[in-house]
């Protein structure tokens, strides 16, 4: 069979992830220290696991309603209000298979062929391909290190056209660790007010915002809730990646269409995970805080050590990633990562895996123990000293 003729050219045209290639290579090498993983090293808090086990013991092995258990959706509303002062009604919430499904459903519900989607780069690897599959055109907004990888109003204005349908707002940002504080969001909101541009605000790392100010959602700025699809989930803050559970909140007319996509494509999110998630939201604020404290200690340790060895980062106030500047090495991101892997057996991810705007940077994850990070830093320091000679 000639598969080239049979397969969807849109997906065929998507490049395989740049991170994949590195991990494949690293997995064949011995003694590699990996700082590449994009998920917590903590286990799901026991009380959450126990709730999942109990739901199985009680035989709760049925589908839930398409939009998710009503108790969970109620709990999501209480949680968002308690933690971030975000207000949604239960029928504005849909439980999804991870935040990822919410992103997909959002894009397919709002995008039409010819629409433009503004995506800030360096970008999490899924947004572009999802937008392409929905038939839309991706308009990159290349954020800059000197702006700490935040979007500025000027940059946004420069890429808006009459075809702009959706702005992806991925803060706190994977891969850069950048955070948009209230004043930065206000600038963006000012550009959007009076337009019909929608916002998909991916706030999966909201709990992992450091410093004295908590995460602020664009939903809370005047005129923004009506145009925003909020994506969140349990993977990062509650260390529940493998449970595959997230949620989307949006104005009812948008959510109803997303729900159709979810209903036909997925049916309902995993029931065991939903019961566990009720406990995650109602009983685990302390556990979330403890994990955040540990990440913050590692972040400060890592950023300070990286600065010392000549790989500074820029206000990485969120997530569990640092986007380190490797330009002092004189190498490209790919060269740097390949040589670091072959010569020192340390795996970090080239910034270019997140788009061309990531050139000159590498993404380093700190969802590892201090010991592990310290071992990798010793090798990276040797490497930097050698390449700078």
């Amino acid at each position, binding site marked *: 069979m000639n598969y080239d003729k049979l397969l969807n050219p849109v997906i065929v045209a998507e490049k395989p*992830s740049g*991170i*994949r290639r590195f*991990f*494949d290579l*690293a*997995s064949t090498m011995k003694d590699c220290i*990996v700082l*590449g*993983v*994009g*998920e917590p*090293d903590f286990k799901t808090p026991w009380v959450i696991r126990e709730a999942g086990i109990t739901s199985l013991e009680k035989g709760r092995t049925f589908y839930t309603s398409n939009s998710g258990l009503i108790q969970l959706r109620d709990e999501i509303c209480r949680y968002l209000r308690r933690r971030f002062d975000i207000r949604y009604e239960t029928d504005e919430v849909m439980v999804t298979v991870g935040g990822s499904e919410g992103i997909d459903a959002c894009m397919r519900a709002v995008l039409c062929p010819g629409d433009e989607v503004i995506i800030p780069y360096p970008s*999490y*690897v899924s947004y572009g391909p999802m937008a392409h599959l929905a038939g839309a055109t991706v308009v990159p907004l290349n954020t800059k290190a000197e702006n700490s990888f935040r979007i500025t109003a000027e940059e946004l204005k420069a890429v808006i056209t009459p075809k702009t349908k959706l702005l992806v707002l991925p803060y706190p940002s*994977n891969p850069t660790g950048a955070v948009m504080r209230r004043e930065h969001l206000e600038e963006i909101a000012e550009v959007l007010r009076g337009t019909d541009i929608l916002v998909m605000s991916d706030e999966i790392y909201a709990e992992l915002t450091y410093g004295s100010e908590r995460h602020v959602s664009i939903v809370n700025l005047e005129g923004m809730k009506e145009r925003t699809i909020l994506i969140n989930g349990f993977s990062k803050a509650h260390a529940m990646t493998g449970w595959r559970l997230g949620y989307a909140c949006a104005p009812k007319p948008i959510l109803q269409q997303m729900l159709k996509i979810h209903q036909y494509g997925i049916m309902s999110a995993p029931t065991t995970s939903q019961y566990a998630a009720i406990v995650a939201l109602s009983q685990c604020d302390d556990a979330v805080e403890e994990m955040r404290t540990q990440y913050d*200690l590692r972040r*400060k*340790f890592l*950023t*300070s*050590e990286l600065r010392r060895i000549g790989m500074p980062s820029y206000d990485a106030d969120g997530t569990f990633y640092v986007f380190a500047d490797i330009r002092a090495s004189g190498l490209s991101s790919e060269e740097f990562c390949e040589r670091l892997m072959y010569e020192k057996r340390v795996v970090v991810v080239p910034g270019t895996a997140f788009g061309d705007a990531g050139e000159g940077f590498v993404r380093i994850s700190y969802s590892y123990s*201090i*010991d592990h990070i310290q071992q990798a830093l010793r090798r990276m320091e040797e490497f930097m000293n050698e390449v700078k000679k």
Partner: protein
Amino acid sequence: MEKILSIIETQPLLTPGQIAAMVDRTEQEVVDIIEKCKREGIIKGYRTLIDWDKVSTNHVKALIELRVSPKKGRGFEEIAQTVASMPEVEAVTLISGGYDLLVEIKAKSFQEIAMLVAKRLSPLDDVNGTKTNFVLRPYKVSGVPFIEEDKDERGFNFL
């Protein structure tokens, strides 16, 4: 101060400069706080956790429970100090339950421990009874697992 203590409790090899970055203080402040904690007896010392079973079979441990008569005015202090002064004794703890003191002993053989209990602990005036529990295998010591830790099984994903 508590933040610094909780960091060095598990990471004693970090430098004051590294700790300073983690707690938003200067290196000198961290040095001063650690010195103060040493002076005040808050930091008692630093030790390395070694799994001696992996090095030789010449190391055995026992947990000895002692039932003792407390002395008027001094309670359990006197007998606890007497027991603690024996070089083979690693730890002495006052406990609730059927016995009063829990004594951890390290020696070269089970025989040596048995002799120590029979000849030096049991004959003490205030000791009314002993119960010897030989340690067969430690699984976790001072918060550190002594068994093979779970491997990092996280998938290599394009996240």
